[in-house]
């Protein structure tokens, strides 16, 4: 069975198709290309964050700071553009650099002082969320023409359907990430470290550099997601994206990435995000269900996928032994 390693992706993809199909059967107006594209438009920021998180989790770590980083990015952008009159052309590269530096710092602490990623990124989460409030406690609305046009531009994809700028950025990020994960030395190093850090070290792979690069990448991705989120919300607020880290981890897990590290696919994460989007769409089409059902369903899905991973993992271990 050559394709066993793709089983989890196929399950994720199958589940997505199943959910979209059942939504189409249940609700009129559900089955359309635009509903599908809206999944991308509404979840562009989640997708970008989840791509960064996939790399972190594949390397055997975890990044809890992503949600706060998004909030901090919206806050810094809003404050600089709106209150200090900086041009977006300067602000956006600046926040992206800040995000990358923030991730790099966390990666350095994790690697050199050997503290669990969980705790370091937890501190990063507190820090970023706190810095938001240092900037301002209130919402800062953005009405700069660049941001409003980025929010409203519709890119036609034929048949009267459209994508937003954010969705296109997200698609580009996914494409780049697939290339990075599967066709570069950096990607192979990440999988090797996630499989066994000790072996990677013995093989002479640059473990320290790669680990820090992974967190830098995740910081960059969450800052980029923050920029996209700013387009989406047109405001900066300290309470933006509360709990996003969990949604992101859930998307990555539902996408078939093993939380123990070493196994995972960016494409899986892509469908993991879309599945969360479909759940929300179905709930909004249903109308009578409330939004908290999303959390419960995502929790259940998490459970199912983790159990599935255990099952597949156990079977694989048995095959290797027998």
């Amino acid at each position: 069975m050559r394709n066993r390693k793709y089983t989890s992706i196929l399950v994720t993809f199958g589940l997505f198709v199943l959910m979209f199909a059942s939504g189409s059967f249940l609700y009129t107006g559900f089955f359309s290309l635009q509903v599908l594209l809206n999944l991308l438009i509404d979840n562009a920021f989640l997708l970008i964050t989840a791509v960064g998180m996939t790399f972190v989790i594949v390397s055997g770590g975890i990044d809890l700071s992503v949600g706060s980083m998004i909030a901090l990015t919206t806050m810094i952008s809003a404050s600089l553009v709106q209150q200090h009159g900086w041009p977006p052309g300067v602000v956006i590269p600046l926040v992206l650099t800040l995000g990358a530096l923030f991730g790099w710092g966390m990666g350095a602490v994790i690697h050199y002082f050997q503290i669990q990623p969980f705790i370091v990124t937890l501190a990063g989460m507190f820090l970023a969320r706190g810095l938001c409030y240092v900037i301002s406690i209130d919402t800062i609305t953005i009405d700069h023409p660049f941001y409003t046009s980025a929010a409203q531009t519709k890119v036609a994809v034929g048949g009267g359907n459209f994508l937003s700028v954010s969705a296109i950025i997200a698609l580009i990020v996914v494409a780049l990430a697939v290339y990075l994960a599967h066709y570069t030395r950096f990607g192979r190093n990440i999988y090797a470290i996630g499989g066994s850090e000790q072996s990677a070290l013995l093989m002479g792979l640059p473990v320290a550099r790669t680990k820090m690069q992974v967190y830098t990448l995740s910081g960059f991705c969450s800052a980029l997601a923050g920029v996209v989120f700013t387009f989406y919300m047109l405001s900066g607020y300290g309470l933006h994206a509360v709990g996003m880290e969990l949604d992101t981890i859930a998307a990555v897990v539902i996408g078939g990435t093993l939380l123990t590290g070493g196994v995972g696919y960016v494409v899986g994460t892509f469908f993991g995000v879309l599945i969360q989007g479909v759940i929300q769409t179905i709930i909004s089409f249903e109308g009578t269900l409330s939004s908290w059902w999303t959390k419960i369903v995502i929790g259940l899905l998490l459970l199912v996928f983790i159990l599935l991973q255990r099952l597949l993992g156990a079977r694989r271990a048995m095959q290797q032994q027998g």
Partner: protein
Amino acid sequence: MNRIAKHHLFWPLTVLAALLVCNLLVEPDFFKIEVKEGHLYGSLIDILNFGSPLILVAIGMTLVIATKGIDLSVGSIVAIAGAVGCMTISKGADQNAMGLVLSAVAISLLLSLLLGLWNGFLVAGVGIQPIIATLILMVAGRGIAQLITDGQIITVTSESYEYIGAGSLFTLPFSIFIVAVVFALASIVTRKTALGLFIESVGCNPKASRLAGVHAGWVIATVYIFGGLCAGLAGLILSANVSSADGNNAGLWYELDAILAVVIGGTSLNGGRFYLAGTLVGALIIQTLTTTIYMVGVPPEITLVVKAFVVLAVCLIQSEAFRNAIVQRWKTRKYPAEREVSPHA
């Protein structure tokens, strides 16, 4: 003196004392405790009273962390327990009836026990990493809490229920007594019976302790159940204190504060050792820090930034790599000559 400095409570108590002294400098009346209408009032009492839910959650978390686990779902359990408690009471005919309040308490504690059992089952029975296993309930739990309260904030008007969070016994807040009982129970059971030893051995090496005849699965399940119960009690106190249940915000960030308290108290996240008294001091430090920040007049939001640096500092001190780096630098820079000479002396 050296022995005192090496005691595991030395640093936490020093930090706590320093914080209290800072408060005294800012607010000369800080230690003043007054008697009004038969109750004791004062900042210190407030710290104990408002800190009690956190202390409870942190006590449960200590034992979970001692088995090398972690429980991210405590915040959600706090929300669920409060929601169930308030829901049961709001449905009763006479909200003040003792039987109704007792059954509300019993139902929410039973539910938190079951939720703890669920976590324990996933970790010990199915063998999922603790972070992930409890993440499930953390995500789904808030949804469940909102499902129970129907997305609303439920308000109750029951003096008997309010007593759990805001009442006072022997002039002290009632919640302090709940904390005292739980803390005493946990200390006695873990230090006077073999359970504490079992927990530490499972935290060090579950496989070895199983070979030595310790049923690791049951030990792990027990600590998660205890963690769930503690979180349930905290949820009752929190919701009773404000006579309402908010599925969305009750117990938000509690898991992080509790983990922080445990780590400050000297319990390592690598499992195998735990200090309940340290956790108590750690939780008090966090609560005092919050109070201080309120009192000094700094915007309360900055608490998060301060906490971030506290977490980082505590972890760096615990990190062997960091200590070695510091010690080496200190040794090589200051006394190179002495070190060479000393062996001959």
